[in-house]
């Protein structure tokens, strides 16, 4: 039986062209209208070092990376060993490996059984024979994979032509020789992998983008005209993308000397009336915390795109975690209102970014979009018609010579119209110091209390208007899963798989993290019997954050938390759900 859902991993060293291979497979699949999710993992080395890429392909909707691998192509077993515990083969996996690098372990060592198939392929030797260089082995291996597993062969060949067509004619010729020779070699193999052949009908091409790119386009869509940032993994792609595209819409990018100056420049531009944002990762967010207080105190709209990586300190720069939550929600000296959003997938990266601008502009405060490496750097196909979002602009006062303008007027909803330089009759001075309604520094307790109330009053109407969350699965369920960020993908898969088995599992995934859609969560809790919280944080930051403002049904609560460095797998969530059902049964038996 061929399959409708195939996950392929490619593993090698930095110079093996693993990333190129993954890109070509993903793009070719998108071209043929397949759904694709592609993730990469690599060591922190600049060049060389281990590198892996996992592409999951299906004609049906998919929501998480493929972490149960059907096929693995290995150029180097030592590199494969460096991903121990991160790349999980299915028991019946097909492993293609470099024939010149014999397998150091037995199938049992790899946790595999007799259904697993090991196919030695002389990648380097064949590439040298066909193309005159072993560097072509990645292109050669593409056609071996395409031929054996029915990947979109024609489109992959087009991808090769596109990649090398722009270069010297000879380079294209040798790579095509390697590609076609690889297919021929694969046809000569006497192996049965029919259960791993992908079956699909080609449809209209889909767009394929990474979360960081979706964020950058979201910023442009929202009307962002100024970006300042400092390079940091894994969020630099936003800086890269906008350095090309912001000037095209009449905007500017400044690469600053550090993250706090980036955020300072963003606040400056926003003060000047221009929508602006910065992007960073945990270490940068630490520096930006100083400016977050300023944006909150001076009520200047600002947007931070933060891609979480493993921490604390330099941590795991290339790998995902969900442990910047407390820093985002609570970080700052003083009482500093802010908003925190979190995307669950690539499409969400677009929506949460536009939403962040809308909220920042409407309520004049800092908004952090707390994405994570697993969603920001993965590439996935997104339906174009989903990528629409309304844009909100800030309220300006009337430029009236007869009105005394109070920049920080204490209004019923806490929002005071914000003038911008150039407006003649609404000139004001703003302040990181506590200030009165006019904006003048004031350190009286009464003023501080009154202005704190004003700043926090905004959170009420904000929470009413913006309570972005998603619900998956049946209206009433035995097990309800509560998670956030990239955990959404595996959780959504589990909810669907459970439904297929006839189990009632649902999920509540907030995109609005702070202020939390508390009413909506309470309503959700009434629809489930057991609550399972899933998060990638050693301390369980999400669970403990929830506990900071609401009670949870502790006697029916199950918490799955662990540190990052490995993306949440579908199997992990499956296992936790299974355990919850088991506990329920045990409890029922005891009751009986």
């Amino acid at each position, binding site marked *: 039986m061929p399959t409708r859902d195939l996950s392929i991993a490619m593993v090698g060293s930095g110079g093996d062209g693993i990333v190129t291979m993954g890109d070509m497979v993903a*793009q070719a699949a998108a071209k043929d209208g397949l759904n694709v999710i592609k993730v990469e993992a690599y060591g922190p080395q600049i060049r060389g070092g281990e590198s892996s890429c996992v592409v999951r392909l299906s004609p049906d909707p998919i929501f998480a990376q493929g972490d149960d691998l059907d096929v693995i192509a290995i150029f180097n077993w030592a590199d494969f060993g460096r991903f121990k515990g991160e790349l999980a083969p299915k028991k019946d996996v097909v492993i293609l490996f470099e024939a010149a690098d014999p397998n150091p372990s037995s199938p049992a060592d790899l946790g595999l059984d007799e259904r697993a198939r090991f196919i030695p392929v002389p990648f380097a030797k064949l590439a040298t024979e066909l193309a005159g260089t072993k560097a072509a082995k990645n292109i050669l291996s593409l056609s071996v994979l395409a031929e054996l597993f029915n990947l979109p062969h024609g489109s992959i060949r087009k991808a090769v032509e596109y990649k090398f067509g722009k270069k010297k004619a000879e380079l294209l010729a040798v790579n095509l020789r390697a590609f076609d020779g690889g297919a021929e070699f694969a046809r000569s193999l006497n192996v049965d992998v029919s259960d791993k052949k992908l079956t699909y009908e080609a449809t209209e091409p889909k767009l394929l983008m990474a979360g960081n790119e979706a964020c950058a386009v979201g910023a442009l869509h929202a009307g962002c005209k100024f970006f300042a940032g400092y390079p940091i993994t894994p969020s630099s792609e936003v800086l890269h993308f906008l350095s090309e595209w912001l000037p095209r819409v009449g905007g500017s990018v400044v690469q600053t000397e550090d993250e706090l100056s980036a955020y300072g420049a963003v606040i400056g531009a926003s003060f000047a009336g221009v929508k*602006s944002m910065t992007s960073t990762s945990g270490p940068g967010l630490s520096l930006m915390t100083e400016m977050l207080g300023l944006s909150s105190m001076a009520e200047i709209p600002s947007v931070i795109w933060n891609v979480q990586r493993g921490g604390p300190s330099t941590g795991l720069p290339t790998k995902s975690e969900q442990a910047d939550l407390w820093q985002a929600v609570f970080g700052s000296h003083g009482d500093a209102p802010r908003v925190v959003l979190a995307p669950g997938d690539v499409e969400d990266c677009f929506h949460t970014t536009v939403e962040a601008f809308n909220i920042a502009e409407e309520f004049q405060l800092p908004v952090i979009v707390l994405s994570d490496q697993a969603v920001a750097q993965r590439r996935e196909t997104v339906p174009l018609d989903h990528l629409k979002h309304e844009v909100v602009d800030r309220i300006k006062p009337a430029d009236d010579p007869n009105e005394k303008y109070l920049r920080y007027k204490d209004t019923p909803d806490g929002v005071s119209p914000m003038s911008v330089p150039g407006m003649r009759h609404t000139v004001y001075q703003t302040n990181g110091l506590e200030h009165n309604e006019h904006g003048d520094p004031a350190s009286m307790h009464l003023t501080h209390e009154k202005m704190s109330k004003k700043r926090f009053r905004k959170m009420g109407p904000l929470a009413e208007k913006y309570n972005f969350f998603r619900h998956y699965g049946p209206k009433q369920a035995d097990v309800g899963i509560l998670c956030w960020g990239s955990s959404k993908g595996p959780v959504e898969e589990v909810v669907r798989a459970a439904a297929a088995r006839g189990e009632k599992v649902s999920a509540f995934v907030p995109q609005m993290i702070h202020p939390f859609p508390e009413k909506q969560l309470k309503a959700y809790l009434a629809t489930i019997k057991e609550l399972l919280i899933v998060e990638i944080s050693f301390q369980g930051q999400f669970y403990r954050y929830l506990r900071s403002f609401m009670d949870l049904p502790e006697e029916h609560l199950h918490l799955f938390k662990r540190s990052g460095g490995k993306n949440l797998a579908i199997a992990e969530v499956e296992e936790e759900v299974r355990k919850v059902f088991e506990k329920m049964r045990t409890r029922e038996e005891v009751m009986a």
Partner: protein
Amino acid sequence: MTSSVETPVFQPGDYKTDLKPVWCAGCGDFGVVTALYRAMAQLQIKPWDSVVVSGIGCSSRLPGYVATYGFNSVHGRALTMATGIKASRPELTVVAVGGDGDGLAIGGNHFLHTARRNLDILYILMDNEIYGLTKGQAAPTTPAGDKTKSTYYGNPEPAFDPCELAISFGATWVARAFSGDLKTTVDLMVKGLSHHGFGFLNIMSPCVTWRGDDQFKTLKAKTRAIPESHDKTSRFAAMAYTRETDVLSTGVLYEVQQPSLIDRLTHLQELALKKGPAPTTQEIFKNFFPPF
């Protein structure tokens, strides 16, 4: 920099707000703010088309006393705000102000890079060789050996010269003034505000409270005008007027014309325009379909 001869005609008093300065009687910063009112009036800068931005410190209170848009931000970060304001709204006149601790210690890195970028603003540093607001600790310009609140046995660190730094960082206009010499200070502010690129004006602005009466008297006695014959385009010649001990040379030390950050950012927009007119969101998304 914006200037205008249109009516209304602005008098120095038009740039003054109702807010009473928090400065001590006799503070050098009064001279600085008075000079700024006069310089702005001389150039007929529209208050609503300009922004004065500062960090934190005694001198950083200055934006509150000027009737332009103002931003009294956080310690050391004035130039980061100024970067965003100017880069996003190049038509605005932007002046950054602050003290020596604010600009040279905590904000030193921003000073370096804002000068390097040649951001089109005037940065006025009010240098009193001490932390005033926090009540008298040694600053990067406090002479070695000086006893302050934080240097009980005398300052163990040498001072540096802000003008020397500015020149080496890439500022394209560098001048020094003494706030007790109003005429020269106004004159230099007018020149600095008219300069295209990053202008740096270091104003010796005595602190009567923490540096005593002597500082004012000593500065007054030491002040000399830089001679007319000085070659302002020469980095080498300019450096001769830095690290002075016995005299204080006031005037323009260094002045060259270089493309500013705004020139360069505008150029990038022109290059981008060659790729086609501003795309819509849907057009941008089309770039994410497979290109083959």
